[in-house]
């Protein structure tokens, strides 16, 4: 499988000297083309930090990220990010359609009419037909996150990075949006990295789960989830392979919680 993204020994400390907080302690993993990879770790372990480093939004202290074989130093063409804070990541002065189209500002070779059409298509793909001319602040949280997802998909990126996109929506909406995301990833053959603290979500969504330790965070281990691309909220969650994977991830998170030394403060 072609490797799209590779992280090698990513480490990141915030601050310097005595007050330094070592967040990432040398994280390595890779993601292949068409894969859906979940990265799961407890809150505060540095998932956002890691995702921003992968996206070229924030420099790691040491280590490298390569995207399609090239080192990432700034946000590369072909990587889109869906942020956790969806309400702030959309622009209130733009209609939903314009927000999605704005995801393509720096996409070359598309006229503004084509971008508009593409935005329309993506809004329909996330189930928001009829809301194109509304503004993000006229939508519920889940719908706003759909707009952000549509924006991420519209830029025709090779890699979609999702930072706990469903952490702030209610349970029913979350389940619906998990299926929506899976459906979209399959339809657009979109390579995805989903970062989450929710173990069940990580397993349900992914072809492979990367389990993180607590700070200073490293990769504890990886598990392949051999449940096929087609998932179902009821049957998949009852499948013994799902339950085994869930058990495995929870055990390792629990043991890293008790075994790890107190973080350097």
């Amino acid at each position, binding site marked *: 499988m072609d490797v799209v993204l590779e992280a090698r020994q990513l480490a990141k400390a915030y601050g310097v000297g005595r007050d330094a907080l070592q967040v990432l302690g040398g994280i390595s993993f890779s993601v292949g083309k068409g894969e859906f990879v979940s990265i799961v770790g407890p809150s505060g372990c540095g998932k956002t930090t890691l995702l*921003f480093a992968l*996206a070229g*939004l924030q420099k790691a202290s040491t280590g490298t990220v390569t995207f399609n074989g090239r080192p990432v130093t*700034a*946000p590369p*063409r072909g*990587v*889109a*990010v869906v*942020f956790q*804070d969806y309400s*702030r*990541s959309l*622009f*209130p*002065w733009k209609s939903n359609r314009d927000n999605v189209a*704005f*995801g393509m*500002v*720096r996409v070359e070779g598309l006229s503004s009419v084509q971008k508009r059409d593409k935005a329309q298509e993506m809004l329909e793909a996330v189930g928001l037909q009829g809301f194109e*001319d*509304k*503004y993000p*602040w*006229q939508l519920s949280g889940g719908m706003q996150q759909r707009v952000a997802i549509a924006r991420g998909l519209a*830029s025709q990126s090779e890699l979609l990075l999702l930072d706990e996109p469903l952490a702030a929506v209610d349970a029913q909406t979350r389940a619906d949006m998990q299926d929506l995301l899976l459906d979209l990833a399959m339809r657009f053959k979109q390579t995805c990295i989903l970062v989450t603290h929710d173990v069940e979500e990580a397993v349900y969504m992914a072809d492979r789960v990367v389990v993180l330790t607590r700070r200073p965070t490293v990769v504890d281990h990886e598990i392949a989830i051999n449940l096929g691309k087609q998932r179902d909220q009821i049957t998949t969650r009852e499948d013994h392979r799902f339950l085994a994977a869930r058990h495995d991830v929870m055990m390792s998170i629990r043991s890293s919680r008790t075994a790890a030394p107190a973080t350097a403060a």
Partner: protein
Amino acid sequence: MSILPDRQRYSALVLPVVLLLVWQVLAWRASTPLFPGPGQVAISIWRLYPQIVGQIGYTLMRAAAGFLVAAVVMIPLGILLGRLKTVGSVLEPILDMMATLPPPAVVPIVMLFAGTGDAAKIAVIAYAAGIPLIMNTYEASKTLHPMATLVARSLRLRRLETMVFIDLPASLPMIATGVRLAVASALLVSVTAEMLLATNGIGVFLQRQQENFQIANGLAAIAFISMIGLIVNDLVQRLERRLLFWHYRLDLHNER
């Protein structure tokens, strides 16, 4: 679309009417040309309005020119300074100092460079209008939520694109505050500058009437100035609500 609902608008009229009546009564009792009542002022307005309107034209043109110069220079500069954190923090004390300086105080300095003509007056007006514009724009641009920058960077916007497409619209609510202050300031300073650098305009008219103890005529001019002020203020507010519907979360589709 009006700011006040109808009932409130009518009740807002009560106080001015009462004040006008009290004023008229006091003027009758004083019965001297140095204390004209609203009746005499009305007569002055009737007699002099062609002249007043002509003079106000000059005043408004200069106020508008000064405001435009200030807006074109100070809004982009404020956005830029908000991004260039170090330059901004170096310039900040200078801005604070300029903000405390009353615009008429700069008139002698401006006269040195620009003489006493239109250019000088427009420069003074631009200075006065520029202060609230840059202060508010800079403050807004400086305090933008970091999320906006992250999104801009992840969409691979260039610096200039970020400033134009994100920083500027995101700063508009505070810029609007600056605009309101700047418009008021431009009108005020426009009249003041005319009184100091006399040639024409409503300020000169006003000064002349007062020098000749034509108090009623002077008050007529003042009535016109305040009316213009109210109209301009109302226009600015309407424009603001139209452009910033997203800030006030006005539902466009339900409103019309």
